């Protein structure tokens, strides 16, 4: 009986005691808390890698901007494949139907994630108790370049955009942030790039890192977009005169967009892609590959030469851009693939001619999947082909334009920079002092037109054309269906306006 009593006392005690205290349900995750980070250089470096990561999402902007321009059609499988893109191609896009996967809304979201990642570093590096280390300035300079790169995309596409400086946008903040005037966004972009240019070297130990040249080139471009031609000419010429870059030679040019020539001497800033990881449609922003490379290729293409993969026939160049190339321009062959000619030249090659929507027979060869990669699944999403975001040729053409347009134009310089690019294209010696056959000798407005025309053919397929037309006021005359000023900016998806408290004005005309 005594035993029994003990048992039941123990038992009752057990019942009451096991009822552990409330501490039982206070457990920390083994993942790091984002508010308790930046305690070492490694933390900063790791956060910076994540900020670079979103450069890879910009291939969508490149592809869609090209489709929006007069260079290419949307293509794809059918008239109803990716409606948001088909509408942009036809300039009938609106604030409706641009939210979620495969829309402008998703691209908007990617850029804000990217900027949030930059601002995460900026927020903590500025705190009083932030740690210091020798490479910190470099980390901050790279971060600020990236923030400028992303903000520049936002401001080009949407104009006035919501922005906070040096602070993440966190849950709840979205109801308080207004659209920041374009001028203020540009102001931050300029400050970021000036800081980056002042604090980064022309040559980094690792390719893919932001350099001084990248910052200067982007700054020159940003000035150009604001018609600040003097400042633009100045920073671009600093880069031309002091930077390590040069044009590839005519002989080298055919390799420009090939894999073995990634991060070449002409490439001032390049977005890095890789094929080592798999990827899926569930998370486009998680891809390490360049999806656009596969999406731009011909359907059912079997290339007997072994160079190209097949693709999904998006972003197909029109006859008009092919015709824009002059006779003897070596760039045409390496910019635009004429599929019928290729098949003729490479017996045994075939492609699916009837498949695909609004096919022209031309494909964007600069960003088209090559064979020989690892093809980790999904093979359409894991192409390792880098995007040459800023090439030295672009820098020269921008310098030409800035010199032509600055208050005291320097047409001689403008001709010189322009003709460098042209001589390379036509196989003429770059350093010859004597005039060459294809040199442009005109001045004034004719020279300006020649520079813009040259930009189109030099940079076709690289996503610059649409914004060149917009910033030079020529979009309405060149792009079918383009209404000015409405289509100079893209609409903010209606859902974005509603989900932030219905406070923002839509861009005019939408």
């Amino acid at each position: 009986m005594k035993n029994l009593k003990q048992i039941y006392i123990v038992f009752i005690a057990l019942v009451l005691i096991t009822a552990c205290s409330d501490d039982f349900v206070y457990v920390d995750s083994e993942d790091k808390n984002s508010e308790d980070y930046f305690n070492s250089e490694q933390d900063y470096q790791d956060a910076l890698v994540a900020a670079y990561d979103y450069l890879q999402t910009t291939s969508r902007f490149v592809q869609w901007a090209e489709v929006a321009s007069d260079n290419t059609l949307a293509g794809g499988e059918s008239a109803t494949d990716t409606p948001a893109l088909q509408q942009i191609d036809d300039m009938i896009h609106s604030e409706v139907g641009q939210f979620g996967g495969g829309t402008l809304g998703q691209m908007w979201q990617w850029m804000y994630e990217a900027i949030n990642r930059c601002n995460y570093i900026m927020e903590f590096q500025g705190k009083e108790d932030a740690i210091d280390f020798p490479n910190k300035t470099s980390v901050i300079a790279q971060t600020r370049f990236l923030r400028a790169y992303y903000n520049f995309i936002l401001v080009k596409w949407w104009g006035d955009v919501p922005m906070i400086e040096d602070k993440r946008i966190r849950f709840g903040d979205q109801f308080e942030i207004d659209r920041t005037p374009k001028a203020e966004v540009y102001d931050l972009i300029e400050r970021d790039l000036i800081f980056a240019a002042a604090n980064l070297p022309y040559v980094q130990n690792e390719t893919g890192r932001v350099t001084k040249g990248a910052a200067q080139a982007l700054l020159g471009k940003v000035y150009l977009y604001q018609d600040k031609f003097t400042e633009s000419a100045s920073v671009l010429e600093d880069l031309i005169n002091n930077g390590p870059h040069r044009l590839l030679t005519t002989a080298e040019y055919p390799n420009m967009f090939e894999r073995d020539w990634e991060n070449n001497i002409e490439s001032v800033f390049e977005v890095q892609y890789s094929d080592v990881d798999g990827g899926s449609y569930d998370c486009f922003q998680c891809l390490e590959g360049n999806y656009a490379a596969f999406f731009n290729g011909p359907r059912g293409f079997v290339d007997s030469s072994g160079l190209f993969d097949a693709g999904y026939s998006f972003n197909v160049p029109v006859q008009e851009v092919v015709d824009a190339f002059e006779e003897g321009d070596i760039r045409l062959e390496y910019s635009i693939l004429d599929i019928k000619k290729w098949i003729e030249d490479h017996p045994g090659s075939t492609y699916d001619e009837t498949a695909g929507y609004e096919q022209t027979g031309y494909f964007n060869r600069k960003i088209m999947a090559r064979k020989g990669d690892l093809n980790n699944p999904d093979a359409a999403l894991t192409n390792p082909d880098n995007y040459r975001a800023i090439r030295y040729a672009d820098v020269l053409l921008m310098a030409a334009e800035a010199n032509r347009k600055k208050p005291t134009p320097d047409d001689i310089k403008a001709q010189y920079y322009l003709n460098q690019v042209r001589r390379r294209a036509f196989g003429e010696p770059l350093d010859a002092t004597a005039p060459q056959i294809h040199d442009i000798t005109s001045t004034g407005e004719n020279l300006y037109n020649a520079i813009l025309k040259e930009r189109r053919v030099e940079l076709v397929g690289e996503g610059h054309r649409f914004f060149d037309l917009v910033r030079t006021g020529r979009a309405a005359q060149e792009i079918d269906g383009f209404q000015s000023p409405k289509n100079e900016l893209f609409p903010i998806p209606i859902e974005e306006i509603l989900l932030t408290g219905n406070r923002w004005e839509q861009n005019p005309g939408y």
Partner: protein
Amino acid sequence: MRHILLNVLAFFFIAYTSAQNVNLSGTVQDEGGMPIPGVNVIVKNTTKGSVTDFDGNFTISDVEIGSTLTFSYVGYVTYEVVIANGNDMAIVLQEDVAQLDEVVVIGYGTQTKKEITGAVSVVSNETIEKLKPTRIEQALQGQVAGVNITANSGSPGAGSTISIRGVSTNGDSRPLILVDGNVVEDLSVINPADIESMNILKDATAGIYGVRAANGVILITTKTGRKEMPLTIEYNGYMGFQQTTRKMPVLNATEYALIINEAYAAGGSTPPFSDVTNLGAGTDWQDEIFQTAPIQNHNISLRGGKEKSSYSYSGSFLTQDGIVGGKKSNFTRFTNQLTYNLDFFENFKFKSGVTLTRTNSKGLPENALGSVLFNALNIPPTLSVTDENGDYTLAEGVGAEVINPAAQISNTYNRNKIMKLYGFAGISYNFLKNFTAEANYQWNYSEVSSYSFSPIVFYGVGKVFNIDRNSVFEGFNIFRDYTFDGFVKYENTFNDEHKLNVLLATSVFKTTGVFAGRIGRDIRDNSLAFATVDEAREQENIYEELGRNPTFDARTLSYFTRVQYDYKGKYLFSAVVRRDGSTRFGPENKFGYFPSGSIGWVASDEDFLIDNNFFDLIKVRASYGILGNDRIGDYRFVSLLNGEGTYFFGGNNREDEYFGTASGPIANPEIKWEKQKTIDIGLDLRFWDNKIDITTDYFKKRTEDLLVSPAITGLLGTGAPPFVNAGVVENEGIEFAIGYSDNFSDNFKFSVKYNVTAIKNEVVEVSGDGEYLEGGGFGISQPAISRMEAGYPLGYFVGYKTDGIFQNQSEIDNAAVGEVAPQPGDFRFVDQNGDGVIDLDDRVNLGNPLPAATMGMNISFDYKNWDFAAYAFASLGNEIVRNYERNQQLVNKPNFYLNRWTGEGTSNTDPRVSIGPSANTVFSDFYVEDGSFVRLQNAQLGYTFSNKADSKFQKFRVYISGQNLFTLTEYSGYDPTAGTGAPIGGGIDQGFYPSAATYLLGVNLKF
């Protein structure tokens, strides 16, 4: 009740008139003539008694004539007989079919059916035995009013979605399922034959489970031995085969070629088939893919007990091939269960059980673009399965996703193995007469190892399923959890009138796990023989490399109390309060209180009704409570650095890869429990000598502070949207169940049961005005078609309404059209807002995947040695989206295209065919079908051999059984019963793996 009174009166009468003692002996048998061992035979109001032996014999000496003998045995109606003489007795006990004193498990206790004040349904082991489910969800389908089961696939071992009284959240709406008190999420590991009963708590009664109760609670009790039970060995087994229930009518080769030619001509291209004369019927790809697949199941059990202990062992083996892929979609399960109960003392008892389960399942791609059945429907019938060399034919020219399904099956190698060990141990102690203290510990341990090998394979040019680099994946995840329940009960009856029952309890739950996964690439010889990560040339550890935490730890801590009171068994009252704390919520909202209560009135016990000759029971019940739901991910209240952020410096090879740090899902520090306010009013009736039994309930569940993961602005980035408490969903409905059972004679018994549930689901609010959440894909790159939006049912379909077909150009010229200019033969879409343009604003509600009503019906009768049972269920008013047409130029089509528009006046329902641009493939009501169905799920005919005196068997029965025998439906897809169960995006059919028709031959043996 009246009978007992009469008996008691008779007893007194006889007791006073005689006083002579006799020695009694006899046998106790069941209705089938089988002896029942272990029956308690007691002389009423004395301590004198005996137990029947192995052959059902008993003897009791010195029994007074006129005294009453009671024969009681679990599962049988207690039988009483007044002793008139000393003759041998032959007692037949009747099986207890839903008696009022049947014990129902209600969570931390039991009540009799009569005492219950909540909406609780029971599925007994008899039902499970009749249905022969391979998974226990199948035994719930149509059996219980208010419970809806949607099979996620007909693939062997595939799971189902269980929803109790409607879908009330767009998140995880699974009910809490406890097997002997143990939380079990994956029901594939449970052997249905081990189950004694399933009790479904549908209303506020579930409030005893507090924060986890809002989606309902299913309490599963497994079989165990009984005290004083001689060793009983049972063998139950069946073997059979399975076949598809349906083949979809698609075009044969000649029809296909003609229609493709027409489509090319309409699109301005050269028709691809110049000569169609010799094509014939071509390949029937569905015949190539579907096969007859075997299934077999064996169960053996040993049960027994001694004076103070009982034990049981049960072992089972199930193996089932798939009707698609055969062994490539095999499911095999071994289970072993052991239980042991011991009474140390009269008032100190111990119970325990342990189960070891192994499952091995293989699967094929299903219900997706490019899945096996999707391919079988879309691949041209002009292609043969293999070419002249015996290699699989390449499916060229039919788009990137459609491949040869036979090749696909042969190149699929995967398996998922689960080893699960779980058990329970408990002690209970009675003290101070009215108190019981009980402590129960339940634990689970499981190892899930998954394997897949993707060999280098080429299905045709540009196919997304081509693999240029082979790889092998090996995953190994460990899950552990435990639940500790400790409680003290006080039970007393005052003045024979006031019965009081008080429970004070605590419950602790902790679940943890570790994940591991490795990928190996470049497998030697592209051969399965070398396909392991260890042997691969390149190896990658997915968790190590990313530096992510591969573990989880989630806990709840609960205190609760329940008071049950009744007055004379007529006025019933029960109240529960529970306090729960969960690691899923932040410091501000970690703890929540969940009150619930219920009342009942047994009107038939009132004086004015007690003497009526018709009603055996009239009971009115009502319950109300606030229940919680915490089924969201862990740590969603705090921002963690577990996002993806990878980049490459210095090259694009493996060694150049940098893994950065980024925040993961977006945090909301203020998240708290979802609250469900649920009301239930019920009426239970039994009449005509308990032959008719009616249960009917009205319920309304209003879920507030819904934990939704809403659409959020892109400003917050790409992290998974935070959970917010923003939304209200209502489910209102009625349930009605009626049963009739009668024993017309010893030779003929009959019973029929029917239940129906009607539910109206409405989303009242979703995080602010004019907002909706969307999901569910259709076709390629089309906008999402399913929505959760205020004023509509959860997950309704949004799309264009068609208004016939444009017959000529002038009709088009006078109509609103969209972006893609229509031609005669294309759909005319309704311009809902009358703005003259067809655009996204013209999309409207095209139906929803939720059934308006579901019902089930069981019929069974026994005639002499024969027994027959049949069971059917139905679902009415649910829509299904047909999404298995690929719409590429050269793919095959359903045969309704034979009725297509071919010129003015030819069709106003089916559009023309063309490879040119058209909006006919855009989601519209053309793709929405009525998914209502009635299915005869089971029919079984058995024969029990009469028990001979010298027989070795207590029972020997053979039966044939058919499952899923036929389905009445207008739905044109494979299987209207299937669905993904996704609250938003459910009901979209991309080629469901249909549930098979199964034919079984089985035997039941009892030694």
